[in-house]
């Protein structure tokens, strides 16, 4: 299970310091109660070493945000959305780099995968991806960069909320999904290393 948790993360310099500070911020936020779920989510996701951008809900803004994060090289794997309206991705799918039905070679070699997330979790900064839907699982796993798009109103306070019937029409109770919290990581080789079998980077776009 490869759990990253060496002191380099929690008490040392570089990433760790940011990480610890981020957790502090998130917890202070939840105690204060005044901060919105989106703000809490953003702080917690950053604490887990993800990057976050909040953008307006328009095809143009979303397309720009994805392309800004995706870098300028290579094919972009795209798993068609199930919950967000397809029109929202209208501008994005028009880009020639975007591939929603990749060849095996493209699956293996693409630098970036884009998926929607049907929910977020404020306390932990997690995004929830339906891995039973089309190729969302692979698009969120195989490439070094995963970009997840989540709607602000689907951000829930705590992980436990996903297992309640009245939350998001019970999607958490009926789907095969994964809570993704930051990039893949390990401490099995000694110090904490990000980017193991899964992505090295996780970028989250929150739609206001």
């Amino acid at each position: 299970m490869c759990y990253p948790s060496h002191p380099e993360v929690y008490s040392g310099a570089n990433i760790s310091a940011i990480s610890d500070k981020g957790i502090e911020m998130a917890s202070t936020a939840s105690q204060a109660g005044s901060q919105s779920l989106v703000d809490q989510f953003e702080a917690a996701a950053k604490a887990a070493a993800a990057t976050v951008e909040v953008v307006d809900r328009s095809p143009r803004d979303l397309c720009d945000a994805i392309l800004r994060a995706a870098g300028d090289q290579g094919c972009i794997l795209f798993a068609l959305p199930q919950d967000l309206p397809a029109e929202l991705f209208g501008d994005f799918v028009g880009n020639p780099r975007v591939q929603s039905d990749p060849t095996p070679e493209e699956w293996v070699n693409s630098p970036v995968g884009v998926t929607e997330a049907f929910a977020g979790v404020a306390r932990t900064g997690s995004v929830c991806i339906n891995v039973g839907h089309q190729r969302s699982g692979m698009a969120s796993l195989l490439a070094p960069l995963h970009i997840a798009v989540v709607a602000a109103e689907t951000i829930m306070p705590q992980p436990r909320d996903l297992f309640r019937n009245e939350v998001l029409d019970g999607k958490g109770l009926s789907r095969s999904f994964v809570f993704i919290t930051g990039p893949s990581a390990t401490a099995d080789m000694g110090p904490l290393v990000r980017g193991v079998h899964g992505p090295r980077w996780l970028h989250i776009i929150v739609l206001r």
Partner: protein
Amino acid sequence: MATTVNPADIQPRQVANKSDKKALLDAIRMTLGIQSAAIRHNTQTFNRNRYSAVARIADYEAMKDRARRTKEAAIANLPELLRQLETSVHANGGYFFLAQTAADANRYICDLLVKHQVKLVVKGKSITSEETRLNHTLEGARIEVAESDLAEFILQVADEQPSHIIAPALHYSRERITALFKRKFQTDLPLDTGEELTRFAREILRQKFIAADAGISGANLIAADSGSLMLVESEGNIRMTTLLPPLHIAIAGIEKVVPSRSDFQPFVELLPASATGQPLTSYVSILQPPLAAPSFAAPGKTAKPREFHMVLIDNGRSAMREDSVLHEALYCIRCSACLNVCANFETVGGHAFGGETYSGGIGGSWEAGTGKLMNARFSELCTGCSRCVPQCPVRIDIPWLNQNLRQRMNQADGSSFAKSLFGSLTGSAPEDRVAPVQKQFFANYHIFGKWGTRFASLANLSNRSGASRKVLENTFGVDRRRELSPFPTKTWEQVFREEVPLKQATIAESRIAILADTFTNYGTPERGMAVVAMLRAVGLDVVLTPSLPDGRAAMSQGMIATAREQARALAEMLRPFLDSGRKIVVVEPSVLAMLRFDNKHLLSDSDLFTALANNSFEPLQLLWQVAQEKDIDLSQVFPAARSHLGLRLFYHSHCQQRTCNAASQTIEVLRACGFDVVTSSVECCGMAGSFGYKHDYYEMGVAVGADLFDQVRAAENGSPRVLVASGVSCHDQLQAGLGCSVLHPSEVLVSTLQ
């Protein structure tokens, strides 16, 4: 006794099975020599992170209650849940197989892979498949098995058993992994950082994921209502294993089944927080296989339809379920909190404090339940310090399980004339007279204390003689390097009777009976009298009870019948004190813990247990409470400036005292009086009652203490502090390790009195 085996010559596999005690001792030598630094670093990091992570879970205690209730109900209703689960898996289009034995499970999986002409199978981490030795079976059928969790990958390369239930290669430092890979892969690639090592393993394993015909995962939990799996990880290898290959096999013990997916609720937060101290690990998957999404087609191949098999194994679990003690272990969610919080585990890890598959405090019950009783021999390393008890997310009383295992192992060792004679002379309960003489000796400390004080000068003379220490070591296993505190010439009871209270009690409503616990009565009456003086200084009415053994020493040796007799007699002795409205003060924290917790297993009168548990106090805890209630200014009663000891203190609280929530008050009191107090943060001092005195564990006890000694030196930073400890064995450990005398907090306070 001392074998001179070089730690480097011992291979972990050789000492994995510890049914022979020599294997246990060799394993301790190996881990202390080679693995200890990495284990300490990694487990202590997990431990610190867990404390901060669980503090951030809303309603942490309520969540634990809920998790416990869920597991209790699930195990109680297991046969029905398994039937439901089978129906659910079939309804999803999967296959279900319930294997009675490890061999049945391995045969099913092997046949299935052969039928599918599988050449290469990738595995996500599954400790259950370690239990069944699945890889061995598959490799025998010429199927290549690629362990994809990086820690399992290391173990596969090194051919070692796991040393930890969630981080199985945590005994490896980065430097040792580099050396291992260089040797095994004969590579010139630079492998000198975690990044380089990870990239190296990742490249190898990425090719395996792409080429694999099948994936085998474990499961952290399984929901009977839907056939859903919960899988917790951070590397992404379990996601790869369950997502890419067309054939997915999940293997798990039957105890992983809970009624419904909504029952995952408490565990999704408790498991990662209790395990690595992360709010959530990178990936927590909730899968209902077979997945609707298409499987992966490697370049040049076409995607195959998905197939899913759930293989649940019994392998002794049904018998554990019927066992009055071991059924508790079935509640375990394998988070490893009990490993990381354990001072002994932090020092030697699971290659010593573990068996062929399972490790740590909970590991003994699993090795015994799924294998043979004697495989649990390593559970001797559980000192009963109790630090794991409040950390367990499903509230398993792990020391109690280990004490029961010890009792069974005592019985399995068989009786002898010497054991039985010794037992009848010392007052062991008849059932416990099969226990080794060494254990009966430690269990009946009060007898030796009684005779030791009666003939103190003779006993002390003999304790200083090399010849008699040799006898003590050879017969009773008391290491001759441990200095034994001299017996006092008078017991606490005798001193108390001779002392006349100088001051009339002024606080009428709080009347106190101090238990003359056997450790203080026969070992350190001066500490007992300091507690008396301290409580009288604030005007409390204090009496001393008779001295009776409390059951702690017997229980720690697995002599549960003796412990039960002693605990009952003690409780009956204390009953009239309670009835007359007195609160019970207990100086020795391990005895306080008996009254607060352990007696729930020993006393049949649950009302008496509750009354004692609610009315027993650590001395400074009571003092702090009275001071708050009566608005007493402690800095006036015990002004620190008046003490000849100076203001600078280092305080180490006792492990069981902390579990009783009776430690922080001592710090409050000392600080309120004006002392400058630095405290330790170690879980246990390493002496842990009789553990550190034992010849077999002397080196280990000293090694465990190293952290505490380092903390003292760091706090002193060249300018000494008075060492203060609440427990008598902590006192001895500090004194031995640092060579200076150690005081009880009450002695510090009394030093301020005119």
